[in-house]
């Protein structure tokens, strides 16, 4: 556990610094209260709203660990949301609705994985295909409308609470823990990392790299479907045009802020989750701090650049050098 804490220290410090920063502008940021049925407060809001990015980041972490990237996850959210909304309005019942939505995500992942692993298309191009064309599929399913529904069971996924904690929060936490345990308790983590570091060498050592690659894209599709279900349930409607729009970029950013290399190899799901929380803290924090909304993207961009610069490996050598210069002086 000590090693993990050290590995994640920059992300944890960044998150703490952001919370402190937002608290300067909005002192009530860290207040949490219990309104009789659930916890409420800005932090709880962050934990709830980070669900889509956090879920996407879990799957994206695995894809990036194989030296790939999945640009289609935002679109897959829309597809899964559309499928879910269509299924629930068609009266198929909640279990079947969820199963169909998740199956849509897995199918999208299978498609991406096959393009990458079997046909050998570069991941960025392979997933770009579904990213652009998939919204059309979602629109076909919703027939171009925003498909609304009022099923209370389905809506619970977006706005319900378990033991006072918002259900989306429970869902992303459970998903992250499940994936992290799956990766480290089985050999999947090692096989994914080996495939990412050197696919040729791994294949020669008997690793079924093709299946591993398809599996990570399917995992990413599954996570995207979960995110799509949460988003759809939250607004009680499927919006094929806007659901998950640009979220793939936030998910990639979360993975990178989490300290995972885009060149594949070693990965940390916990790091990506912290990255997702950092992004959502920025999103929520800007709004709460009362800046005019047109400043949001600029402030976010500035903060992200600062975070990435501080984390850059080129700089860390300079920090060590700087410290060695400054410390003796302090001793005088």
């Amino acid at each position, binding site marked *: 556990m000590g090693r993990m804490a050290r590995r994640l220290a920059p992300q944890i410090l960044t998150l703490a610094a952001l919370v402190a920063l937002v608290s300067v502008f909005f002192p009530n940021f860290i207040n949490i209260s219990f309104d009789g049925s659930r916890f409420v407060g800005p932090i709880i809001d962050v934990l709830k709203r980070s669900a889509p990015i956090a879920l996407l980041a879990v799957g994206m972490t695995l894809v990036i660990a194989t030296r790939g990237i999945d640009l289609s996850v935002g679109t897959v959210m829309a597809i899964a949301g559309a499928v879910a909304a269509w299924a629930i309005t068609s009266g198929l019942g909640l279990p079947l609705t969820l199963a169909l939505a998740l199956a849509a995500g897995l199918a999208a992942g299978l498609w991406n994985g096959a393009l990458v692993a079997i046909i050998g298309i570069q991941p960025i191009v392979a997933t770009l295909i579904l990213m652009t064309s998939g919204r059309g599929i979602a629109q076909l399913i919703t027939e171009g409308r925003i498909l609304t529904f009022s099923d209370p069971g389905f809506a619970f996924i977006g706005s319900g609470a378990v033991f006072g904690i918002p259900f989306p929060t429970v869902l992303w936490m459970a998903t992250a823990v499940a994936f992290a345990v799956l990766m480290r*308790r089985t*050999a*999947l983590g*090692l096989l994914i*990392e080996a495939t990412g570091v050197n696919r040729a*060498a*791994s294949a*020669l050592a*008997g*690793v079924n790299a093709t299946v591993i690659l398809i599996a990570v894209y399917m995992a990413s599709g599954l996570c995207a479907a979960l995110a799509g279900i949460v988003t759809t349930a939250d607004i009680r409607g499927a919006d094929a045009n806007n659901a998950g729009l640009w979220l793939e970029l936030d998910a990639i950013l979360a993975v990178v802020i989490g300290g995972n290399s885009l060149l594949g190899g070693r990965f940390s799901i916990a790091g990506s989750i912290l990255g997702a929380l950092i992004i959502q803290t920025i999103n929520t924090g800007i709004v709460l701090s009362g800046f005019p909304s047109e400043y949001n993207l600029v402030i976010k961009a500035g903060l992200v650049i600062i975070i990435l610069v501080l984390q850059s490996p080129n700089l860390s050598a300079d920090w060590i050098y700087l410290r060695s210069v400054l410390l003796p002086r302090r001793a005088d």
Partner: protein
Amino acid sequence: MLLSIRSLSKSFPGTKALQGVDFDLAAGEVHGLLGENGAGKSTLIKCLTGAYRRDGGEMFLQGHSINPTSTAEAQTLGIGTVYQEVNLLPNMTVAQNLTFGSEPRRFGLVDARMQSRKAREILAPYGIGIDVDRDLGAYPVAIRQIVAIARAVELSGKVLILDEPTASLDAAEVRLLFSIVGRLRDEGLGIIFVSHFLNQVFELCDRVTVLRNGRKIVTAETAQLDRLRLISHMLGRELEEAERHDRGASGQNAERREPMIRFEGLGRAGMIEPFDLSVERGEVIGLAGLLGSGRTETAQLMFGVRSAGSGTTEDAQGRVAHGSPREAIAAGFGFAPEERKADGIAAELSVRENIILALQARRGWMSRIPRAEQERLAAHYIEKLDIRTSDAEKAIGDLSGGNQQKVVLARWLAMNPRFLILDEPTRGIDVGAHAEILRLIHEITAEGMSILVISSELDELVAVCDRVIVLRDRRHVAELVGEDVSTDAIVRAIAKPDAAKVVEPA
């Protein structure tokens, strides 16, 4: 002295790469820098060229203290470097490469005619008549090497560092390179020559300096050193007999061993003509031949890297499927490929993870090898194969070539295969590790494993093999057995098939 280095030190986390190293280079000498992998040669050169910042010590060029912080600065000071992999731009013309960064300009634009003329002037003394307006990539490595030297001399002109320049050259190209190096020496350059090839060091160098474990062991006139002394300086011990192993231990067992696997008519159009090969238990088979003769292709078909177009494979139990690496592994095969970095190791992962990778892949992702068992396996093989690493969690990419090769060997030994294919197992590794790997081959065959060794070093094949198959033009042309295995016989078989016994169809 042209260049003096005094008690140079450099440490990396966990290792002292250089400790108080002194080094002198006179104008007009070729100075060989020798040492096993990990001895500190490249660290010394990188400190000299500004790629690393030294921790301690001083460097003087013509009496002035220097402190380069980048290769560009080192070049301006007068220190130029040419690496084994030429670091020029193959998609630009020779002229552009030679004048890169100092292009002749006219009205602010590059003057192409002037550029070509300048390039021809630079190359004139080297006596290679090439078209400077063609892309550098169109020329063979030797020419590119010379262009790189010409550029380095033009830019720097005092000290020239040649880092393994001959590794990918043939004999005639080496001659050409040596004549050029000789001329530059006569013109008063100081040249540092790093090489694994002792013959070349003896031929070319006026003096040699031997490094071992980050310390300078000796500097001596080449004429006063004999080869055995030099090698024992490098290894820090008297050379073991391992290199001159007689094949007695494994080869002269009178009774033929039981056949284990029979490949019949295995081949694939464009890769290798169909061949037959019967592998016996506990024997070492060598594959000899020139580059491109079909040695690696033979191994690839056997291990299912490429699927065979024809042929059947059988063992005592019947047909053996080996159409993919996974099938081949299931059939009890192992394969340590030639390109260690590209196909062998997962550089970022630890020694432990690299050792257990194949074993874990065979067990499947569901049944993870428990951490304690992984550590036990890693510790076992680190000790058994004498893998030099600070610990099992170190990234394998940080190890020297010989130790990386041992880890790849350990990966397969952990699988306990019945048939292990080693493609150039000693390429690019130092003398000490070289001998150890040959010794290991002997040891593991004694336990009943059969090994197929592909090697360009005939001495090595003669030292370890019971049988040598000779290949030429993608065809198995001859087989030498037992007493007949000698470098002489192999060379004759490569050159002229009739001189050796032609493989009889099984």
